C-alpha cells in the first residue's frame, strides 16, 4: 500500500472500529473528515518508517478528551494541524511524516486527514495497534521514549506545549488542559525520529488495520468461509455468542466505565461479563477471567458482523465476543505494569489467549 484514497476509507474505518476494542472514539466523524481531506487535497502517501531518513522528524496527532463529549462536540478540523505546527515550531524542525499514536478508533483516521491537509505522508506504524485511554499507554513508553514535549490545541486557536519529565506526568498535564479546553482537543505527542520509530514502534499498523477491515467486509458480504479466514488471519478466538441482559454505565474518576453482561444464546445459565474503562479491558466467562488487557476484546453484531463500540451497545443486542492478540511489540518487560489488568485497578493476572 503506497497510497490511501477514497476506496480505502470504509475498510480502514471498519478495521479501526474493531481495533478500538469498544472504545477509541466513534470513527464516523473522523471518516467524514478523512473523506473531505482526500477529496480536497488528494490521496495520502503511506510510508514505512524504515524508508524515511533516520533523523527525519515524525509528529503525531490525535483527538483527546472524553468519547461521550467527542460524539457531540464535532472537531473544527483546524486544531490537529495547529497542534502539529505548534510542536514543530517549538522543536524548530519540520516533520517529514505524520503518525497515528493509536491505530484503533477515531485516532486512526484523523491523522490521515491531517496528513492530507498538511501534504505529508502518513507513516505505517503506531504506538498501540489498539485503543487505550491514556497517553502513556504506548509501546513507546516501554521503549523509553518520552511523550513530551507535547502540544494541546483547541478549535478556537488556544495552544500549549508542555515539557514533561515522565509520560505519566504528560498524561496528567494534558488531561488537565483538556478538561479546561472542552474535553475534545488535538494532541501531538511522542515527537521522534524515523530511526526511533523503526526501533520502538509497531510497524505496519495502517496496513494491518485496512486488511482487517477488508476481511470483515468479506464477512459482512456473506462470503463463504470469510469468518474463519478473518479469525485465522487475525489469530482471534471466538469466545461467546450472547444477548446483552444487563448494561451498567457510569462515569467515575474521569473514565467512562461500564459493565456489559451477556447471556449465552444456547444456555441461559452461561454468562459473559465485560468490564469496560473507555475500552473493553476484561472478559469473564462464568466468573473466570478469559480475556484480559492488553489482548483485545472485540464485540461484533452477531447478524451484521459490525464491530460494536461500548457507547452503542443496548439491552437485547446479540453479540459475538472475540479475543484478539495484541501486537507482539507489546510483549516486552514492563507491559503488565503499564497496560496489564492491575494497571486499570483489576486485581487479576494477565491471561493468555488459548491456542
Amino acid at each position, binding site marked *: 500500500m503506497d497510497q490511501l484514497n477514497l476506496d480505502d476509507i470504509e475498510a480502514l474505518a471498519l478495521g479501526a472500529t474493531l481495533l478500538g476494542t469498544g472504545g477509541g472514539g466513534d470513527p464516523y466523524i473522523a471518516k467524514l473528515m478523512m473523506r473531505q481531506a482526500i477529496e480536497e487535497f488528494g490521496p495520502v502517501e503511506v510510508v514505512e518508517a524504515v524508508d524515511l531518513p533516520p533523523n527525519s522528524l515524525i509528529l503525531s496527532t490525535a483527538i483527546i478528551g472524553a468519547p461521550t463529549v467527542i460524539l457531540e462536540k464535532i472537531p473544527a478540523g483546524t486544531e490537529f494541524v495547529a497542534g502539529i505546527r505548534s510542536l514543530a515550531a517549538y522543536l524548530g524542525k519540520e516533520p517529514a511524516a505524520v503518525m497515528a499514536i493509536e491505530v484503533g478508533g477515531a485516532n486512526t483516521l484523523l491523522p490521515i486527514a491531517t496528513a492530507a491537509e498538511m501534504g505529508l505522508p502518513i507513516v505505517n506504524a503506531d504506538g498501540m495497534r489498539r485503543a487505550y485511554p491514556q497517553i502513556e499507554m504506548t509501546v513507546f513508553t516501554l521503549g523509553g521514549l518520552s511523550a513530551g514535549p507535547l502540544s494541546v490545541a483547541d478549535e478556537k486557536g488556544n495552544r500549549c506545549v508542555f515539557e514533561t519529565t515522565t509520560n505519566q506526568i504528560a498524561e496528567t498535564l494534558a488531561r488537565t488542559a483538556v478538561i479546561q479546553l472542552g474535553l475534545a482537543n488535538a494532541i501531538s505527542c511522542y515527537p521522534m525520529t524515523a530511526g526511533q520509530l523503526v526501533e520502538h514502534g509497531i510497524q505496519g499498523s495502517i496496513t494491518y488495520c485496512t486488511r482487517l477491515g477488508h476481511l470483515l467486509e468479506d464477512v459482512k458480504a456473506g462470503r463463504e468461509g470469510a469468518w474463519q479466514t478473518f479469525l485465522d488471519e487475525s489469530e482471534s478466538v471466538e469466545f461467546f455468542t450472547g444477548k446483552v*441482559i*444487563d448494561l*451498567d454505565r*457510569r462515569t*467515575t474518576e474521569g473514565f467512562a*466505565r461500564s*459493565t456489559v*453482561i451477556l*447471556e449465552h444464546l444456547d444456555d*441461559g*445459565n*452461561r*454468562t459473559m*461479563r465485560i*468490564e469496560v474503562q473507555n475500552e473493553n479491558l*476484561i472478559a*469473564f466467562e*462464568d*466468573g*473466570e*477471567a478469559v480475556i484480559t488487557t492488553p489482548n483485545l476484546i472485540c464485540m461484533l453484531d452477531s447478524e451484521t458482523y459490525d464491530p460494536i463500540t461500548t457507547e452503542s451497545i443496548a439491552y437485547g443486542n446479540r453479540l459475538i465476543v472475540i479475543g484478539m492478540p495484541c501486537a507482539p511489540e507489546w510483549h516486552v518487560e514492563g507491559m503488565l505494569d503499564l497496560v496489564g489488568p492491575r494497571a486499570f*485497578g*483489576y*486485581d487479576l493476572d494477565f491471561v493468555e489467549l488459548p491456542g
Partner: protein
Amino acid sequence: MVVTRRATVRHLLTSPHLRAGSLLGGEAGLDAPIGDVIVRARVEPELPPIEGSVVVLDVERLGDHLYQVDQAIRVISDSGAVALLIVNQARDVGPSVRRLANRFEVPVFEIDSGDVMALAQSLRSELLFPDIEHAAAVDHALDSFDRRLVLTPDGVVDVISDLMNMDCCLMAADRVVIAGPRIEIGGRRLADSNHHYVDHSLESALHSVPIAIVPGEEPAYWLIAESEGSDSAQRTLASLMRLGAWYLATILASARVNAERDARRRITLLNEILDTTEVSEAGIANQITALGWTTTGWNTGLNIQLRGSVDSGRVLNLHAEMRQRLGDAGIDGPLIERTDGWSGWISDPKEPPVDSYPTIVRSIASALTGFVGSHSDLTAHAGVGRPHTELVGLRRSLSEAREASMISHARGREASGAAHIDQIGVQRILMGWFASEDFASFAHTVLEPLIAVDPDGQMLRTLEVYLDANCSATAAAVKLDVHRNTVANRVERVCLVLGVRLEDPETRLSLQLACRMLHLDR
C-alpha cells in the same frame, strides 16, 4: 437414614439474623452441609475459601469491582465452599450473579447488615452452638465414666438420660429391661451388627446400640433410646449412646468375670459335695461355711433344668433373676449355676413334716412359671429331693432332685413345672432310660420318619396323647379338642408312616418312651 452431622445452607438461611435478606439463586446447593462461616474481603483463586465454608463478602468494599462477586461464585464452586453471603450491596450486583449461582449451584444470599463482622460472628456462633453442646455432653459423659463416678448399668443409663433429658434403657437379648425404664420397641428394628442404628419407622427415632461382651460375639444387650429431638440432639444422643455402650460393655464384662469366678467356686464345691462318700469332709464343710451356706440339719435338694437357647453364659446372666424369683417364692438357700440350670438346697434345723413337700414344689413351680413368662425361648423344670441330714444326706437329696427334674421335663408338655421325687414313684425306673445317650439316639431314629413329615408336631402330639389316654380315641379327642375320627385318622397315618401296629403292647411302650425322650432331648 443417617443422622445429619452438620447444619446445611438451608438451615443457616433460616437464621433470624438473615430474615431480612433474600436468596438470589443457586437453590440446588441449599442442602450442602456447612463447615464454617468466614469473612472475606475478596475471594480469589489464589486463596480459595476452605471446603464447606459459607463466605461472607462485603460488597460495599468492592466499589466498582462487582465482577469480583462473579469471580467469588466461581472460586467458591471450584474450592468446594458452599455458599456466598453478599452484604451491603450499594448497587445491584446484576443478573449474572443469579445465573452463575444457578449454573454452579452455589446459593447466593444478599442482605443489608451494616456490620459484616458481627453478622458473621452471629452466624458462626449459631452454626457452632450444636457442636459446642455436643462436645460438652460427650465430655461430661466421658468424665463420668472415666472417673468411675458411675459403676452400674443404671448409672450409665441415668447419665445419658439426664444429659439428653429423655428415657434410655439397657435391654437384654430377650428384651428384658436390665436398667432404666422400659421403652416399647414394637415392630421396630434394633441394630443387628456392631453399629449404632436408628429406626425411623415411627415419628420418634429409635436409637439402638448393640453391646457384645466379647468382641465378635452376637450382641447380648442393646442400649436403647427414643428421641423426637432436632438433628443435632439426635447426633449428640447417638454419640453418648455409643460412648455409653462402650462403657457398659466394660461394666458388664467385669460383672461377668466376677460372676464366673463366683460360679466356678460354687460349682467346684457342688461337685465335691456330689462326690462325698459316707464320711463328711472337714474341708468341704469349711468351704460351705466360707460361702455363707450351711448343711447342718435337714437338707432338701433342688434341681432346675433349662431347655432352649441356653449355655453357661446365659445361666450366669439369669442367675440373679432366678435367685430373686426363688427368694420371692420363699425358697432361700444356696443356688449353684450349672451349664443347663441350677442346683441348690434348703436347710432346716428340724426334720420337715412329710406332708410339707407339696408346698415347696408349688412355690418352685410358681417361681418357674414367672421365669419362663419373661423368657419365652426357654422351658424350666425343677425337681425336689427328700430331706436328709448332713452332707452325705444332701448328696442323696440332690441326686433325687436331679432325677425328679428329668422326669418332670420328660413328661411335661408345659413350659415349666416342678416335681418331688415321691410324686414320681415307680417312674424312677425310667431314669435309666432317660439318662441313656443310646436310648436318646434310638428314640430319635424310631420317630424320625414321623418328624420328617410332621414339621409342626401335630401327629407326634396326637400319638403321645393317644398312648397316654390308654389308646382311647375318645379321651384323646377331648384332650386335643378335635373329633375322635380325626384322632383315629391321625393314629392310622402315624402307624403307616412308622410302619408299626399299636395292637402290640411292646410297640406301644417303646413309642411312649420315645415320645418322653423327645421332651428331654429338645
